[in-house]
């Protein structure tokens, strides 16, 4: 009994995005069915072959030749994504012990468990690029690789758990749905799986907020306060504005990214406005209004100086999140050593039998 046995409100988010994930999955099957050439001819230029595969919207697989910069970009991006899943367990994990009903506790436990699972898929996808999970974990713990800035904000009330589902997971899905069509096969396949579960999480978060916003005065105020605190950090999740984004152009040429930061941010804002109305909550932006000419909402940009401060390590919870992760790793060292020693003894014992 996972407790997620509620009927979704009819206007709950996730429907359209989930459709896009399914379309990407179908496209992946079609690309595989088109059976790209097995590899470059003996005298063919590998770079030209790589470019052909990308142009034909087919997938680069682990054994294929790829430009070193493509490999490095993917390792950085997939690892950062994996680290975000693992660090992202902390802000929500903060409320497992205090969840206000047993059903909500069960849903939250299942969600945090899913996040650890996403971390594992993503580390496995990164490992296909020739780096080990242990190396990646060390890069995180040493502060040489980042995780999403959003997890450096504190979860101060129960409503934050709902907002993380609705806005943070919502922003993550808008970012990740196009990655289901990414040119690197293992990443695209991982994203399809991740997005399906994330859209479920987003719906659960929305449902928490819906209940709060239609509950007591105190509950509604709690929900509004959480939306007020998380709106701009969620918008900042799409990264710096296009003019300042260092990796964008190359990533788009390689079909790792499919849309610019600002395009995705706009899509997210447009999606949230109607959902906030249904919730009966307001988004904390007095200049948010429909622009008939652009057929999109005008909105106030997040504070990118704050984003840079958080990315550089000076957000509200950066130090705690890293200290928590390092402590778990250090406290568990004797357990991992014991498991390795035990496994070594077992394989020693088995050898004579096998011989």
């Amino acid at each position, binding site marked *: *009994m996972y407790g997620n046995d509620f009927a979704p409100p009819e206007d709950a988010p996730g429907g359209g995005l989930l459709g896009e994930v399914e379309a990407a999955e179908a496209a992946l099957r079609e690309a595989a069915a088109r059976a790209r050439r097995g590899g470059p001819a003996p005298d063919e230029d590998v770079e030209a072959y790589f470019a052909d595969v990308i142009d034909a919207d087919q997938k680069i697989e682990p054994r294929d030749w790829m430009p070193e910069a493509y490999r490095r970009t993917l390792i950085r991006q997939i690892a950062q994504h994996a680290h975000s899943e693992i660090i992202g367990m902390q802000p929500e994990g903060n409320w*497992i012990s205090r969840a*206000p009903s047993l059903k909500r*506790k*069960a849903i939250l*436990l299942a969600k945090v*468990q899913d996040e650890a699972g996403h971390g594992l898929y993503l580390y496995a996808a990164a490992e296909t690029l020739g780096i080990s999970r242990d190396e990646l974990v060390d890069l995180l713990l040493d502060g040489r690789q980042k995780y999403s800035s959003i997890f450096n904000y504190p979860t101060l009330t129960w409503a934050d758990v709902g907002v993380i589902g609705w806005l943070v997971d919502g922003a993550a899905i808008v970012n990740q749905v196009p990655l289901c069509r990414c040119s690197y096969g293992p990443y695209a396949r991982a994203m399809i799986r991740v997005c399906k579960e994330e859209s479920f999480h987003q719906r659960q978060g929305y449902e928490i907020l819906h209940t709060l916003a239609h509950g007591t005065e105190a509950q509604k105020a709690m929900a509004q306060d959480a939306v007020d605190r998380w709106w701009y950090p969620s918008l900042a999740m799409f990264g710096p504005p296009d003019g300042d984004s260092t990796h964008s152009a190359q990533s788009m040429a390689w079909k790792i990214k499919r849309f610019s930061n600002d395009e995705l941010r706009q899509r997210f804002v447009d999606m949230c406005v109607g959902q906030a109305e249904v919730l009966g909550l307001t988004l904390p932006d007095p200049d948010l209004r429909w622009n008939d000419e652009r057929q999109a909402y005008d909105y106030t940009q997040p504070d990118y100086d704050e984003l840079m401060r958080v990315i550089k390590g000076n957000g509200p919870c950066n130090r705690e999140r890293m200290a928590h992760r390092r402590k*778990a790793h250090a*406290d568990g060292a004797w357990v991992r*050593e014991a498991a390795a020693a035990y496994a070594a003894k077992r394989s020693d014992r088995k050898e004579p039998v096998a011989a």
Partner: protein
Amino acid sequence: MSRFDFTLAIGDDALIAAQRLGEWTSRAPEMEEDIALANIALDQLGAARLLLTYAGELEGAGRDEDDLAYLRDDREFRNCLLVELPNGDFGVTMAKLFFLAAYQVPLYTALAGCADERLAAVGAKARKESAYHLDHAALWVKRLGDGTEESHRRMQDAVDEVWPYVHELFNPDPTAPVDPSTLRAGFDATVSAVLDEATLTRPETGWTPGGGRDGLHTEHLSYLLAEMQVLHRAHPGASW
């Protein structure tokens, strides 16, 4: 023990065990273990919800699972002391989980064959989950017991520390749907086999604390409940 008291007691065991296991989230020694501990916590919570819901129906006073979980004080909880003990290090957590699962597997198996249909259904579902918990904990007891010198020392310390609390689980009660004393032999056989393989020594039985089934707990439970119940109690009557 009446059916209500019995159902409440084993439901409380599962609920408090889930609460302690949930504290491990994002703190486990490896990522796979984070998933496993959350998974086991979720199973325990699922069993707790079924049992508390049924206990509320048996009582007939209109209390649901949340009323029973969030609006009772520590003197009204009926869980065994074992599950409320702090998590300690990973060895202590595995010792607690191992002993709990070695008790819950025969308990739920017996329950699956009992005359009460609802309890039988819970037993049939939960025994499969408990078998997984037992397997998982037993494997860790073996890995830690027969791993490194340090892990052996820590695992033996954990077993010694937790052992006194297992006896309460088997206090005889012929009036209960399953008499706990009938579960002891199965528990002892499981525990001895695993401890032997783990190169660990089964502690002598000396001090045998108890009282959980009568609402006489350790000092730990009230803190656990304060945290678990704080939000629910702050908003009386609210829906979540």
